[in-house]
């Protein structure tokens, strides 16, 4: 019986691990792609000098591991478990020997943090802020008493504010919370994180109060204690599950598969469940085209007109990226570059993206803009997980022969535009036509162009294209 609390903690940790590893892995990939953690003193200082900077830095440091979803899930599981254990230690310190009975309540802040992290814009820095606060406050509660404790608490909170931000003392002042980097939308008040911080203070406060009550009130029977733990687990577990955004997870999965050019996996996924959102349809069409079956099979799946083929670039960080992948694979290198750049600029917390930097380096390399590519590659050399790729790629700069022989860059150079074409926000059939006639081996361009006519019902345009094509073929 005495091991039940530890077993509960372990079960909780495993549940978090499995949830993020199995049910929510692409949320972690999504998070990773909207930051670029640099091992660079200027970068570190720029973060640390802000209120809450230390928590933010630790959050960003851990987020880079989200590139590998299971590692990210493990990190989250460890952090949430640590928060639960420290909450319990704080409760025990406050309440005394009878705290074990209220063990279940120590899960509340961790469950709330789990709930907080369901949102793809919630940042891990918030979790670190809670954890560091507990790490500092618990020993103060443990080792001190009376006015020394009060004084130390005040001093600790002041220091903690610098290190972790307003989580350390949850006053709901909008400007304090929106100024800290707990959430990707800087003007959004992170209510859930505030609730986490508040719950810890409230629980510890109640624990102090209960201590003064007679034993029959402050001491829960083992059965009542287990029931309380079960109640917290079921209620909060349900809350977490019900609020999980599996629809977004699906969209992020398509984006992830497109990033890693997992065309077979995409086909498997769309055959299981036909995507019905813009990103899913864009990725579906790209995968079909990469397999050379877009024109044969596109109407077996949901279509969304041009918006599902090559949608206009919108001013957000998410939707342009799969479109940019299509532009890139087509050989529309300048368009891909612009689209990726716009996506990165739209990241709301002004962070950079490893994925975008990588693509910007690639597009500049293909365009022969080696010095610009070098700048992006130099930045990527300061990262943990993009360094190897950057080191390999930097050797290609200026080496025309190696680039020509490269399976991806060589092919894309051959597929690129041969004639100048001026474009604005909308992709037009003329752009695809020009691309196709630049290199008639570009089957992707051919499929996209004909798909464009099919989706718009532009029979006249199609006939014109075919007559030009036939004319050129006959020469």
């Amino acid at each position, binding site marked *: 019986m005495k091991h039940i609390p530890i077993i509960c903690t372990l079960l909780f940790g495993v549940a978090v691990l499995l949830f993020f590893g199995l049910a929510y892995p692409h949320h972690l990939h999504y998070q990773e792609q909207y930051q670029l953690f640099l091992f660079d003193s200027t970068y570190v200082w720029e973060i640390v000098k802000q209120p809450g900077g230390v928590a933010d830095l630790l959050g960003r440091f851990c987020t880079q591991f989200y590139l590998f979803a299971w590692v990210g899930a493990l990190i989250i599981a460890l952090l949430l478990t640590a928060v639960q254990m420290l909450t319990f230690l704080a409760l025990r310190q406050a309440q005394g020997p009878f705290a074990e009975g209220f063990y279940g309540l120590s899960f509340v802040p961790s469950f709330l943090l789990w709930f907080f992290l369901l949102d793809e814009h919630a940042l891990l820095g918030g979790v670190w802020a809670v954890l560091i606060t507990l790490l500092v406050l618990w020993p103060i509660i443990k080792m001190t008493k009376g006015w020394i404790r009060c004084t130390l608490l005040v001093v600790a909170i002041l220091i903690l504010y610098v290190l972790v931000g307003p989580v350390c003392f949850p006053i709901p002042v909008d400007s304090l919370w929106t100024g800290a980097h707990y959430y990707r*939308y*800087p*003007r959004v008040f992170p209510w859930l994180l505030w609730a986490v911080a508040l719950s810890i203070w409230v629980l510890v406060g109640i624990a102090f109060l209960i201590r003064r009550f007679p034993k029959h009130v402050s001491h829960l029977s083992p059965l009542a204690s287990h029931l309380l733990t079960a109640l917290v687990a079921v209620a909060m577990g349900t809350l977490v599950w019900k609020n999980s955004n599996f629809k977004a997870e699906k969209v992020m999965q398509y984006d992830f598969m497109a990033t890693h050019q997992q065309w077979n996996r995409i086909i498997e996924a769309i055959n299981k469940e036909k995507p019905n959102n813009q990103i899913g349809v864009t990725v579906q069409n790209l995968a079909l085209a990469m397999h050379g079956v877009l024109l044969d099979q596109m109407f077996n799946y949901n279509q969304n007109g041009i918006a599902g083929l090559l949608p206009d*670039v919108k*001013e957000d960080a998410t939707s342009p990226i799969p479109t940019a992948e299509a532009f890139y694979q087509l050989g*529309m290198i*300048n*368009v891909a570059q*612009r689209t990726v*750049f*716009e996506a*990165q*600029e*739209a*990241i*709301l917390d*002004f962070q950079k993206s490893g994925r975008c930097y990588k693509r910007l380096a690639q597009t*500049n390399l293909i*365009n022969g*803009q080696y*010095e*610009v590519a*070098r*700048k*992006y590659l*130099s*930045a990527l050399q300061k990262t943990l997980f993009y360094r190897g790729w950057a080191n390999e790629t930097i050797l290609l700069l200026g080496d025309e022969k190696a680039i020509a022989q490269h399976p991806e860059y060589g092919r894309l150079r051959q597929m*690129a*535009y*041969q*004639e*100048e*074409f*001026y*474009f*604005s926000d909308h992709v037009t059939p003329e*752009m695809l036509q*020009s691309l196709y006639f630049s290199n008639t081996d570009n089957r992707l361009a051919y499929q996209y162009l004909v798909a464009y006519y099919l989706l718009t019902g532009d029979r006249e345009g199609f006939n014109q294209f075919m007559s030009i094509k036939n004319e050129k073929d006959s020469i």
Partner: protein
Amino acid sequence: MDKKTMKRHISPYTLLLAAAVLLLSSCASHPDVPSSSKEAKCLPAIYPDYCDVTVPCNIAPLNFMLPADEYEACVARVTTPDGKQQIYGQGVKVQMPEQEWHDMLEASKGKSLKVEVWGKKDGEWLSFTPFEIRIAEEPIDDYLSYRLIEPSYVAWTFMEIAQRNLTTFEETQIFNNEITMNDRKIGQCINCHSYQNYKTDNMLFHVRLANSGTVIVNDGKVSRVNLKRDYTISSGVYPSWHPTAKLIAFSTDLTRQGFHTLNPNKIEVYDLASDLILYDVETDSVQVVSNDSTLLEVYPTWSPDGKYLYYCKSVPLPEEMHDKDIRTTYPKIQYNLYRRSFDVATHNFGDEELVYDAASQDKSATLPRISPDGHYLLFAQGQYGCFHIRHNDGDIVCMSLDQELPLTQAIDLTKANSEGRPDSYPSWSSNGHWIMVASRRDDGNFCRVYFSYFKNGKVEKAFMLPQEDPELNTFLLKSYNRPEFMVEPVKISVTEFSKVFDK
């Protein structure tokens, strides 16, 4: 650990640490020159290129480096005309302490510093051909302000208007687009910082989109105004303060962008319409200067005496192109330079005079700036359009105004311009001896600031704005946009500026 024990440990430790730091720093700053080396018989490929440049007598240290992927170490010996020498070098970088550098400048005013550079490559030291840095007697303005922004297309992220002390490396923020952005989805753009007569008590910058307005400082007092009127096509865009009166000439523009699939220029910025207005700061009134709906007027600038307003105006398109889409006509849009006399008492403008006929040479001239003595005109020139900072053929042109209008004779600016990369946004220092340009010459994408010495119609080789860490120019993924000289810093803080958005 008790206090005494702590003290016992701390004191020797601190002393040791301090001594080690001192020793290390002295070694790092002043190494020995290599005892033996092989002669390379060429100038060193230092970055930035400061070989044989002429620099102001008050400029910050010209720190430089050898390429890190080719060299293991770099040592430089600087010799002043009186024979004093200092040796620098740490890794591949040469970074000189500010005080020592300024002492050397002071000792070399009107003369030259001799710089000898050694580079270690594959374990062997190479000695390069020494070069000179000529120290002009004329100083450069103490401050420079610019917008730091990614070389963007349409969207943008964090941007700031910063000011840099040119005699040191101190950079501070004038304003940023984060502090007053009340809706990040809409975004906020800050731009077009501008000063009256290089001073900062009368200045302005624009804030677009979220929480928009033009922030005007009038004798040190900050206000936010809306320059849009029913009779103007937009609010004020490109500004120019009248040198003596509280008047600002603006262009009003309907600006659009397009993109190239192949052309390395990548982006085309053009105006669908543009006019000129005059804004009276004291009365908050807007007067239309010119609004020919068939032509585009842009980039106003005052002569230093305030008696002329110079500006650019497009030439009419051939008739057969009148009904064509801008995507077809944009390479045919060319601007000439004009001026109109101005009576500051009545605010009346005289007739238009053609200053420079660029179109007759199949060119387009933009961004005119008159030298403080009124004798020279700088402008940017490319084959077409109004945004040469995105045109690889964009170059700076200088012409003497002491010739008959329209001007024809240009001064040779080969040493100030780059080959095949955009050079634009020229300006004069307040003493007229330093030309500043924004240039993408380094890599074709990221703008950097370059200065050239100018005296009696002669221009010296351009040099890049020095940085404390010379590698910053390699790693900084931002462009220096709209560099403007100032003789004093902006004294209003970011927070003070932001307060006008609370009203």
